C-alpha cells in the first residue's frame, strides 16, 4: 500500500550555499555551529553546545510510548591548519582529515575566521623537467600563499575557497560532505514529527575519528540512531568494455542506504525499514556497497551499552577535494526518505530478527 511523502519541501539551496561557504575544519566548527544555532535556536528550547562543540537539540514528541531517535549529521569538513610562518606571506600547512593529496596543489584557499584569501601554488609547468612531471607533487613542498606581507596566525585553519555553484540538476561545491546532511537535519528539526523524541546531533570531528558522535550518543542515550552523511560515487564510465563494479554509490539513484561500512554494520531491521519506506512512498533509493569508509554510526553503535544504527547518505563524486558534485534530486529524496521514515517509526521497529 503506497504512502505519501511527508515533511514539506525540504531544505533550500540558499541554506546549502550558506553552509558550504562556511569554513569549519574538524576541531574548529564555529562557523557552521553559528548557522545551525541561528536557524534553530529561536524555535528550539532544549539546545546544548557541549564540551567538544557539538550542537545537541532535543525535540520531544507527543503522546503514547515514544522511541528516542537520534539523527546525526557532522558539521566538520576536511581542510588545513597553518603550522609555520615561512615569511613573506607564505605558510607551511598540515592537512586535517583525509584529503586527497593529489587535489591540493594549484587551488584557491581561504584561511581563518575572516576567510583571508590565498592560494596553494604549484611550480609552473615551464619550470619542470620531464622527470619532475612523472612524480606526484610533494606535500611538504607546498605552501599557502597569502601574498607578500599577508598575515595569518599559525594554528589558524583553512579550506579550499568557497565555490558553490548550481549546474543544472547538480550542485558543485567544497564540503558537500556533510553540509548536505546538516541542511537535511536542520529541516527535519523544523518539521519534527510527533511520534518520536527527535534527538538531533550536529557533531564535530567526524573526519578525524568520529569523536563528537561518541560523546553525543553518551549524552542522548538513544533507542536507535540514523546518520545522514555524504558518500562517494565512483560511478564514472570505465575504459573499454570493463564494467564498473566498485562504484560505491551512483548519482541519480537516490539516497544510499548502508548495510555496512568500515566502522559499523548497520542494523538489518533498520535497513529493511528504510528500503520498505522508500518503496511504499515511491522514493528512489539504492543500497551502498558494503565496506570501506566510515560514518558517525561507528561511534554511536559502540556507545554505552550499544545502539542500533543505520546510515543514509547523499551520493557525491570527488569526495574530500576542492569541488564535489551531487544531484539536487538525490539530496531532496534523502530528505523525503528520512522525513517520511521518521513518521513511521513505532516502538515495534526493533522487534523481530536481524
Amino acid at each position: 500500500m503506497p504512502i505519501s511523502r511527508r515533511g514539506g519541501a525540504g531544505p533550500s539551496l540558499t541554506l546549502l550555499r550558506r553552509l558550504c561557504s562556511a569554513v569549519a575544519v574538524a576541531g574548529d566548527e564555529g562557523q557552521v555551529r553559528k548557522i545551525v544555532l541561528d536557524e534553530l535556536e529561536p524555535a528550539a528550547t532544549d539546545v546544548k553546545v557541549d564540551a567538544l562543540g557539538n550542537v545537541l537539540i532535543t525535540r520531544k514528541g507527543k503522546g503514547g510510548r515514544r522511541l528516542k531517535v537520534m539523527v546525526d549529521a557532522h558539521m566538520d569538513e576536511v581542510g588545513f591548519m597553518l603550522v609555520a610562518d615561512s615569511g613573506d606571506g607564505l605558510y607551511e600547512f598540515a592537512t586535517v582529515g583525509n584529503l586527497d593529496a593529489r587535489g591540493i596543489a594549484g587551488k584557491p584557499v581561504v584561511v581563518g575566521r575572516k576567510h583571508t584569501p590565498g592560494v596553494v601554488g604549484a611550480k609552473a609547468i615551464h619550470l619542470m623537467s620531464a622527470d619532475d612531471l612523472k612524480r606526484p607533487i610533494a606535500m611538504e613542498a607546498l605552501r599557502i600563499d597569502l601574498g607578500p606581507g599577508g598575515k595569518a596566525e599559525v594554528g589558524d585553519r583553512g579550506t579550499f575557497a568557497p565555490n558553490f555553484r548550481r549546474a543544472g540538476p547538480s550542485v558543485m561545491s567544497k564540503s558537500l560532505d556533510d553540509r548536505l546532511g546538516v541542511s537535511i537535519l536542520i529541516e527535519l528539526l523544523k518539521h519534527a514529527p510527533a511520534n518520536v523524541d527527535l534527538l538531533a546531533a550536529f557533531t564535530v570531528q567526524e573526519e578525524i575519528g568520529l569523536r563528537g558522535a561518541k560523546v553525543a550518543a553518551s549524552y542522548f542515550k538513544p533507542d536507535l540512531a540514523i546518520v545522514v552523511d555524504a558518500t562517494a560515487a565512483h560511478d564514472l564510465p570505465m575504459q573499454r568494455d570493463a564494467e564498473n563494479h566498485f562504484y560505491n554509490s551512483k548519482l541519480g539513484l537516490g539516497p544510499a542506504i548502508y548495510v555496512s561500512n568500515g566502522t559499523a554494520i548497520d542494523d538489518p531491521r533498520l535497513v529493511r525499514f528504510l528500503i520498505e519506506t522508500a518503496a511504499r512512498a515511491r522514493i528512489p533509493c539504492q543500497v551502498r556497497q558494503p565496506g570501506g569508509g566510515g560514518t558517525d554510526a561507528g561511534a554511536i553503535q559502540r556507545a554505552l551499552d550499544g545502539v542500533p544504527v543505520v546510515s543514509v547518505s547523499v551520493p557525491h563524486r570527488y569526495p574530500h577535494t576542492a569541488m564535489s558534485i551531487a544531484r539536487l534530486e538525490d539530496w531532496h529524496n534523502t530528505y523525503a526518505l528520512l522525513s517520511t521514515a521518521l513518521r513511521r517509526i513505532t516502538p515495534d521497529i526493533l522487534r523481530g530478527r536481524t
Partner: protein
Amino acid sequence: MKQLLQRLTETFGPSGHEDAIRDLIRKEVRGLADEIRTDALGNLVVRKRPSGERHPKDGPRKIMLAAHMDEIGLAVTHVDNKGFVHFTSVGWVYPPNLPGSRVRFMNGTAGVIGLEPTDHASDVPPLDRMFIDVGATSSRDCPVKTGDVAGFERPFLDLGKRVAAKSMDDRIGCAVAIEALRKLGRTPNDIYFVFTTQEEVGTRGAQTSAYGIDPDLGFSIDVTGWGDTPGMRNFEIALGKGPAIKIRDAGMLSDPRIVKWMERTAKKNRIAYQREVLTDGTTDARAMQLVRAGVPVGCVSIPCRYVHTASEMVDMGDVENAVKLVVALLRAPVNLG
C-alpha cells in the same frame, strides 16, 4: 563435545548476522542458566547467579566471560552483467586462503571463488579481483544481491585427537564456555557468559555488553596462533601442551593479577598450560578492559593451527583442559591479591 563443536562450526554467522548461531547457543544453554537475554547489539548474555555460599567478604564477584559467535566472511558488492558476484571481506580475510574455497550465503545459495588472471601464475590477486561464481549467467538470474553475506563452507573434520573446521575461531571458545557452564555447578561468583557479536570487525559486541554488565573482572576465550609447524619461528605455542594463558597480544596487555590468578589456579588443579605472547591479533578482552572505569582482564586461549583458513585445527586435549581451567577459575572465590 565433538558433536557440539560440529554443530557450532557448521552453522553460519558472519559478523552482523549472528541470528542462527545465537539460536543454536541459546538452545544449548537453556536450563543451565538463571537469566538469558539478548542485548541491543545482539550479544547473548547468559547469567549464572551465585549460589549463596562461600561469599567473599565484600560480596560476590561479577565475572564476565566473552566468546565470540561471529566468524569472518564475505559481503556482496556487485553482481555483474554475467552473474559473477564481486565481494569485499567481513573481518580479516587473507587472499591466499581463498582460491578454491566454497562459500554459503545466508539465504542458502552456494558458490565457489574464482580469480581474475595475474601476471604470474603464482601471484594471488587482491580481493577486488576475485569473484564468487554461484552458477548464474546474468544479474537477473542471480539469487544474491549487493549487501548479502556469506561464510566459508567446509565440513567438520574429526582426526581423533585433533579436529579441524571453519570458524573454530571462535566456535571453540563458545563450546568451551558452554561446557564450562554445564560443568560449573555451584559458584560464589555472579557470572555472565557472553556470546558476543562482531568481534572480527573490531570487538564491538564485547565493548557494549561489558559496558552494560560492568563486571569486576573478565576474560575472553578465543583461539591463539601456533608455532609448531614447519618453518614457524619465535612463537612457542604448540598444540597438545594445554590451553594458553595470554600475557599479551597486539591489542592488549592482560592484567598481571589475572595472569597470576590463572597460573595459580592451573597449577593448583594440575592443568598443563602455556604462556602466550602474541604479536598480531587480539580478542574481545581488549574491548572489555577499557569500558567505564576499567576492568582487569585476561584471556584463556586455545592453541589453533591455520587460523583464518577454512580448516582451523585444535587439539581436543587442550580443549578439555581449557574447560577444566575455566571451571576451576569460576568455581572458587576470586582473590586477585
